[in-house]
């Protein structure tokens, strides 16, 4: 299976891109860049500004709300197909969490202006992003409830 087909399948299974047809995901897949990270790398830091979102091709990434690099408490651990970092591309606010690589990972990254262009072209993407953010809000509510 060629690289592009693999990417398309990965995107189709990710919540953000699931509403876009596989045929259109061809275009989306071509807009993505490959990035490789190793265990312990920090993809981005909390409170930093960023202009990329990421899709996990393989490996594991932990999301932490702490700025302390030694902290190993993660609010969620992401696996293959999960997306992260899309929030600050939409609201232009600093990153709300730190993304730490827990297992060597290959990421697909999408730059902010490209994401905006893609949303204009494939409005279904917005639905996917809404779904993904809604899931995240639910998880946050659950965590808040558990911590009480």
């Amino acid at each position, binding site marked *: *299976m060629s690289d592009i087909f693999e990417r398309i*399948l990965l995107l*189709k299974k990710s919540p953000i891109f699931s509403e876009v047809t*596989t*045929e*259109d995901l*061809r*275009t989306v897949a071509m807009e993505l860049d490959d990035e490789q990270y190793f265990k312990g790398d920090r993809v981005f830091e909390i409170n930093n500004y960023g202009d990329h979102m990421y899709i996990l091709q393989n490996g594991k990434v932990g999301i932490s709300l702490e700025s302390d690099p030694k902290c190993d408490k993660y609010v969620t651990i992401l696996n293959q197909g999960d997306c992260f970092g899309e929030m600050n591309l939409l609201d232009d606010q600093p990153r709300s969490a730190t993304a730490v690589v827990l297992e060597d990972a290959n990421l697909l990254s999408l730059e902010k202006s490209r994401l905006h262009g893609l949303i204009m072209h494939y409005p279904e993407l917005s639905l996917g992003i809404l779904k993904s953010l809604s899931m995240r809000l639910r998880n946050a509510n659950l965590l808040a409830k558990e911590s009480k």
Partner: protein
Amino acid sequence: MLYFILFFLVIGSGMAIGRGTTDALFFKRYGIEYLPVMYIILGCLLFLTSTFYAAFSDRLPPEKFFRILNSILISLLVMAWVSMSFFNFKHIYPVYFLIYEIASEVLLIHAALYLAKNLDVVQAKRLTPIVLAGSQIGTIIGGLFLALSAPHLGVQNLLLVWCMLLFLGIIMITWHHKRTGHSLYFRHPRKHSNKMKQSMIDISVGMKYMKKSDLVRYSSFALFCMVIVFYILSYTANRIYNDTFKTEESLTAFFGLVAVITNSLALVFQLFITNRVIQRFGIKTVNLFFPFSTMISYLFLIFSFALPSAIVTSINKDSIMPAFRNPVRSLFYNALPNYIQGRARAMSVVVVIPLALLVCGGVLWTVQQMNNPLYFLSIGLILTCFYAYFNLRMNKAYVLEIVSNLRNKLYIPGKHEQTAIKSGGIGIFEELREGVEHNDDQICIAYAKTLANTFPEKAVPILIERLQGAISSTRNELFQILVPLNPEKLHGYLWQEFGTADIHLQTTILKQLFKLGDDRAISGIEQKLIDPNPRLRAAAIYGSILHRPDDIRAYELLNALLKSDDPGEVLSGLETLYELGEIDSKITSHIEKSHFIKLLSNSNSRIWNASLRVISLWPSSSLPELVQYLKNAFNTTNEPDVRSQAIRCAHVLGSDDEHDFIVAALDDSHPLVREDAINLLKDENQKETFTSWIIDTNLGSPRTQSTILSKLQEAGTPVHIMENIALAKALDAEMIEQVIITLKNHHEILDLAPVELLVYALQERLEQVIDLTLQALKSIEDTTTINLIQAGIKCSDKRIASQSMEALRNIENQKLAIILANIMEGYLASGPAKAQSIQTFRSAEHALDWCSNRHDPWLKACANDASRVITQE
């Protein structure tokens, strides 16, 4: 689950014993001639009990209500038995009759509520028919018991058997809920709410909705007729049975036998026939079954007032009615908006049925004095005709109700903006005027364009007023909006503005004056051709080509502009050419072609973009050498505007290259590019070509076909062709569904990534091809209805999706409706692969070959990749 089946079986057995004993005891010991009076009293009692039940049923957990109901019934039955056995109290028989009738009605409604409070929607849909089948089996067992035991135990003693069954029901329900707790979906209602008042309000809302909804109105009329027709049939059959069987034991035993036969038939119908018949013929046809069979019953009774006719009648009312009429009526109610369904039902039970019973009792009481059954049978037959008529009206109202319901829930994008704005009247006009006067220039221009399009006469003074004080760029755009309106005194106004305008605006004004054929501007061409400013020079060239086409000097100056090293001069030259609107061979003969083509490779994107725009106006087949350039421009950019521009130039290529280029562009992901491509197809036989592309060749992706289809629809293609297209697409969707089923049934390859991707692609294709079928249907059926169906089936709300499906099932073209409904059911259920009823593909490879041989580039690519991996495996 087993508990529910057994519980309903016990309740069903009891009801069968109740039915047989009630009738036999009342007819033999009190007199069948009082049956009409019973109907009248029953009508009044039903009104009271139904209102009372509706008001208080949800105050208690349904299992507790069931226990109370059964306990009251046991007490009443024991009292009745004591009265019959020890006191020989004659009036106990009509009381017992009424107890049964009321109890059967309340138990029937409460059983449905009890199930609803214990099962979720999905469970209820699947399990309710099975549980109700349990009740039916109970009725058969009860009937069998009656037939065998009545002669030996004595009819009145069977009341105690019913009591025992009710008591068994209490034990079962108590035991079950001790283990599982309260009914799962029961919620305590708010305290202190006036339920009785609320119940009356609900009924009055249902009554008011009758005025609004044809479906509720006609279904209420139909129900009214049906109740009368049903009770006349019931009365007639009972009279024949009563005359035939002389003793109460033999009559009870016979009633038991009839219950066994009719309920067995009903069970067979419900389990094996009802759903299939509804699927096959649709609910509108099935809705006419019962009126038709009732008519036959009446004809039988009219021609032969004897036992065989009575048995036919019993089969009609006790087998056909529960098997076909009752489920279909529930489906009709599902078409109503959620908030009205319960209220419409309450209105039927509390108002329509009691009223019909009062009328029926009154009519029978009056007519039976004449001592000739023909009178009441004739009335029954006439009312059956009315019943059938109202059912026909219900059928018509059904789809309209679904469509209006969907219309309230779905947003359908339409191209009615202008009509809506115009119909908005003075309010909208004032809003547009305010928009034009807005300080923001972009808002002003957007409103000005709409105002000029919708109110051209009124727009001129507003636009001219807005020009005062506007910045140069805004004035520039406003002039371009104003000129096509060609108002009086525009020339003078433009010249007045020309004196104070900057160069950019002067150029615009000059060009607009040339367009208007202004003499002063034309006479000044010579002077402007030598103007030092390239913009004004370009404007003069424009005027010269328009009004002095043989003046070679203008072309020389134009070529000089195009050759200039100054990008501004080049752009002025290109803009001049573009504004000509049409470039014929006479103009091109004066342009230095080789140099012009070089502009396409200019590093300045504005220049090559403007060049492409100019080429789109070039004469057909005049630049065949540009084929590679245009294809590159098309394939290497992500900008839809550039791809659009490239495809608009396709006509300058040779005809074969043009055709290939257009076909490739028809598959573009952007709708504007596809639209541009289709607009270039100028084949004289385009309808035949397009139709053949869609039906025979199945060319391109569904997106391509959708563009072609829109073109065909715009061209007013005959209905029969659109019907063929819709049918071809429906069959194509059926094949795609078969491929998906075949692949899903081969579990060994399903985990392979390329196969997984192919299944995704096929599912998307299925959805798109169904969409294409619906698009074609818009030319055959009512467009709004199809738009609503299209929007509804894509909706994530399952209720709306299933209503859309129902609307689809009831479109005029039943052939297409059946094919599409069958496919869509599987598609909407999106459950596991179902077994193939017809083996279209003998293997997964066969199915993949079918995909590879399609003229659908994406599906082909996915299928080839999947085949390759399967072969390697």
